[in-house]
């Protein structure tokens, strides 16, 4: 089974206060930011790794290929994924400003044509732009089936077909899809028994976790020797032509930092009404 996992670097949400907007308000400046793999991509990567390994012996039985689109530095994000266990990476060089979901979907579609994966496993959205469309757009371009927000996935034919559960407001939906297909994941995909690949023993449970697996030091060292191909948009025949134009970015209003102490519930309600104007 071969799975393509697009991974994006995003500003570390823990340091979100370092994000600045350019003088004219049309872009977010990235100077001095700390980067991290988009947490939603990390969930999908974790699911992809589980689909392509024997969870109990940790033997790899398939291939996970990472793709990141961004400046040269974005190779760090690929290396992190390689350290977690992915086989190889592809860095498509581009500056962050010339990207939108449309360009991203085009790039991944071009890579899919070369790589012919069984699955493309996107994050449901990116933690910075929150657009929520790249995976959907890609499936449309490729004319592949799409399952968004997968919470459980199983296959018993090495990825030729999948049974996928989705979480809905009103309950759960179970679908069957043939590969090649596009998935995005919900956080429930990280639950100990959410991924079954017919290779990992049926009673095996992964440890509870809030994100993808930890990259061990061994994995980090090995990752340095794993191949990362570098490509340009031109190599892939993609023109960096955004369909969205970013008009304006605003930072959230600064917190006032002042604290008011109240004596009673009545006073609190009154202040929430008259001063804070939230009631």
């Amino acid at each position, binding site marked *: 089974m071969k799975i393509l996992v697009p991974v994006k670097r995003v500003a570390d949400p823990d340091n979100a206060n370092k994000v600045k907007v350019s003088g004219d308000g049309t872009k977010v400046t990235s100077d001095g930011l700390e980067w*991290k793999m988009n947490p939603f991509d990390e969930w999908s990567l974790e699911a992809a790794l589980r689909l392509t390994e024997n969870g109990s012996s940790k033997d790899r039985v398939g291939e996970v290929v990472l793709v990141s689109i961004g400046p040269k530095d974005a190779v*760090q994000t690929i*290396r*992190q994924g390689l*350290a977690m266990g992915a086989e190889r990476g592809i860095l498509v060089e581009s500056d962050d400003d010339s990207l939108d979901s449309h360009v991203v979907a085009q790039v991944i579609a071009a890579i899919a044509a070369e790589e012919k994966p069984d699955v493309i496993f996107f994050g449901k959205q990116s933690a910075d732009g929150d657009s929520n469309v790249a995976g959907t757009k890609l499936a449309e371009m490729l004319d592949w089936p799409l399952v968004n927000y997968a919470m459980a996935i199983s296959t018993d034919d090495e990825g030729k077909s999948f049974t996928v559960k989705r979480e809905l407001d009103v309950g759960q939906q179970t679908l069957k899809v043939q590969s090649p297909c596009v998935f995005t994941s919900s956080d429930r995909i990280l639950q100990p028994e959410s991924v079954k690949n017919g290779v990992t023993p049926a009673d095996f449970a992964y*440890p509870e976790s*809030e*994100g993808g697996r*930890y*990259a*061990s*030091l*061994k*994995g*980090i*060292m090995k*990752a*340095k020797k794993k191949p990362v191909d570098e490509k340009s948009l031109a190599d892939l025949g993609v023109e960096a032509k955004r369909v969205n134009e970013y008009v304006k970015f605003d930072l959230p209003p600064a917190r006032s*930092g*002042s604290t008011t102490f109240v004596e009673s519930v009545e006073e609190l309600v009154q202040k929430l009404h008259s001063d804070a104007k939230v009631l």
Partner: protein
Amino acid sequence: MSTYLFENDEHRTLRQQVRKFAQARILPNAHEWEEAEEFPLELYAQAAEAEILGIGYPEEVGGGGGDLSHVLVAADEMVLHGKSVGTCVGLGSHGIALPPIVKAGTAEQKERFAKPVLAGRMVSALGITEPGGGSDVASLRTKAVKDGDHYVVNGSKTFITSGCRADFVTCAVRTGGEGHGGISMLIIERDTPGFSVSKKLHKMGWWASDTAELSFEDCRVPVTNLIGQENQGFLIIMQNFVTERLMLAAQCVSIAELAYRETLAYVRERQAFGKKLMGFQVTRHKLADMRTRIAAARALTGECVTRFLRGEPAIGEAAMAKNTATDACMWVCDQAVQLHGGYGYMREYVVERLFRDARLYPIGGGTREIMNEIICKTSGF
């Protein structure tokens, strides 16, 4: 300048991984565990699962590879993002208990003791200090007398980190005559009849880490638990001290950095005389001095680690790094409390705890005065 000069991409990725662990597993419980003077034993297994315990140990003993530089970086993230020094040092007591076994132990000892510790299934401690004295290691009195294929051990150890919960103690004992030529290292297992934890000690800081007084009464320890050669233990202890002191220096850097960061956040919020504390030049100068001292301590510690890893002599250097870093740490934590005002004296504030934690460092792992003795000796005075 909040990283070491020796760091490369590998260290950078390692930092992210360890940070994730510290934020998920330690930070939410930091205050509670410190107040309870204990962290749950499960944390060992969790840290092993995240492959943190094995950092710096060779793969043949179940380690994750890497060297002291990786250990330092991992410990830095644990302190900065777990915010519980006691938990980190308790969880890390194998950092001083295992190296003698890994460097000088037999294959069987590595299998029986090193592997389970790195897998998070056993807890280990190092026992050198005795109630009668810690600085003068060569005069230690716990006796081990050979009787057939066992040593019979009598004596006591004190201030032993993780001693209450340790499954075994890597212990310095006297097998020969007076002085450093009569000392051996012995692995003493908890279930040995005659071994007991005589006291859990209550301390000024490092609360989440347990510290014990241990006593040995006619403990029969198999000779197969002897580490290295009989009466050759002093050299093992001295080598172990070098890495211990570099790790302690690095902890000081981490603690000071955390105190600085907490303070920075505080002075940006707190108001006095109609402006933020950050608005006073006096505050900014204090912060500048804090940063500078941390940077200096980090630079020297990093340099000594680099020299050590290159194989250069590092005994005196480790002592210099430790003194520099402990001084910086105590001073920075003091300033941190001061800038927090009354809140800095309150137990709910991290800096109050860091101030208490910091006081250990000029004592543990060899006192400030003993470090100077070592620097004098290695300088030929």
